[in-house]
């Protein structure tokens, strides 16, 4: 299980990186943390002719907090992100989900940008980015552009990024003050890809839910944002029946595939169960915060 040969490129700056991508585009693959790409290369499922290793572009490793948004450089390691105080403070949902991404050894290398660009249908970060209406910044031959999460994820492992574009930054909006959150997922083993997972954020106004944000993973080709469920929750006062209703709306919104680990029916059902439990936990956090 050894990778096929490739040309290795090691840009030091974003400009060098984008220049290389412009040159090799389709025949190139960007190597960030490599925790998903290198296994594919070792198995020779992926045989890029050119490997562009961005790990030495130090300017892409940062976490900035402008009060409303966490701006995270694409090369920032998942482990560093999960431990950053700003992340715990502004977006604990992100911290909690990151702790379930693989294992420490994986997160030490795995990057925020890599996880988003890889767009695994069972990834945690993609669902959170979608739930929070986050956005990413990409640099390419045509310059810099910002892509909203909802426009980013196209299908299995496929984003709307151009092969010549380099993902440079991922922006996670901070949770509203006093909001409650919860990440819940079920996996076969600790650290495995989720059979289904859900992230929930509830913003409260007095005793009622002002807005609800829900993002699901593992239940379709892309992360799912169940608009109907969110609408159903907004402006209502919390109750078990409300949670149940939202769970049903979620089940109606997802179209998972079955695989050897879990049937599509199971994933659909569990997506609802987890949503219900996540809403419950999120609201408890609202009450604790109040």
């Amino acid at each position, binding site marked *: 299980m050894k990778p096929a040969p490739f040309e290795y490129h090691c840009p030091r700056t974003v400009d060098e990186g984008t220049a290389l991508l412009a040159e090799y585009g389709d025949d190139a*693959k960007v190597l960030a943390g490599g925790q998903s*790409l290198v296994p*594919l*290369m070792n*198995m*020779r*499922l*992926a*045989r*890029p002719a050119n490997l562009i290793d961005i790990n030495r572009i130090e300017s892409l490793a940062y976490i900035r907090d402008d009060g409303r948004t966490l701006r995270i450089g694409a090369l920032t390691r998942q482990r560093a992100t999960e431990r950053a105080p700003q992340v715990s403070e502004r977006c604990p949902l992100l911290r909690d989900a990151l702790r379930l991404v693989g294992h420490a050894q994986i997160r030490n290398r795995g990057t925020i940008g890599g996880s988003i660009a*890889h*767009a695994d*249908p*069972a990834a945690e970060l993609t669902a959170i980015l979608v739930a929070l209406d986050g956005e990413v910044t990409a640099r390419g031959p045509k310059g810099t552009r910002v892509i909203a999460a909802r426009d980013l994820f196209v*299908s*299995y*492992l*496929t984003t709307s990024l151009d092969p010549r574009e380099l993902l440079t930054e991922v922006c996670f909006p901070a949770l509203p003050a006093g909001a409650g959150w919860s990440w819940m997922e079920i996996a076969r083993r600790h650290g495995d*890809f989720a059979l289904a997972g859900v992230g929930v954020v509830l913003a409260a106004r007095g005793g009622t839910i002002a807005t609800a944000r829900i993002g699901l993973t593992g239940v379709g*080709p892309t992360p799912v944002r169940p608009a109907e469920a969110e609408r159903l929750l907004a402006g209502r006062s919390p109750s078990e029946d409300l949670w149940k209703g939202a769970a049903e709306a979620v089940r109606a919104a997802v179209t998972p*595939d*079955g*695989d*050897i*680990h879990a049937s599509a029916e199971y994933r659909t059902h569990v997506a609802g169960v987890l949503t219900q439990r996540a809403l419950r936990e999120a609201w408890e956090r609202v009450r604790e915060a109040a």
Partner: protein
Amino acid sequence: MKLEGTNTLPASVDTVWKTINDPDALRSCTPGLKELKATGPDTYQATLQIGIAAVKGTYAGTLSITDKRAPTHYKITLEGTGGAGFMKGEGSVDLEAQGNGTLLKWTGDLQVGGLIAGVGQRMLGGVGKMLIGQFFKCLEERLGGSA
């Protein structure tokens, strides 16, 4: 892996039948099809580059159309072999007039073997469905244009 679906196409059964027998349509609508050379009536030599993201494989194989019952039914078989393994897709297509459009019913059985089957099970089914979906969506667009 068994797959099936239906599409409503904005064209008459005869037009649809013509389109799904037109090598150009097949060429431009079969996902990843790089080359399609006729080797006989309804049989073609095909080169496909199928895959997603970094996981791409080039497959050399054949595409053939059998047990035609013009203008409503045929079987289509696609076989390919490449570094990442091999695949065999068998599908049947049935056309049915529906108002001034056509209801296209398809069933497919996709077999994938070798490396890609051994390590790709988590997404294989979904990706298969996606590719076939792309095929019919493309037909739909062509016919939409011509209807």
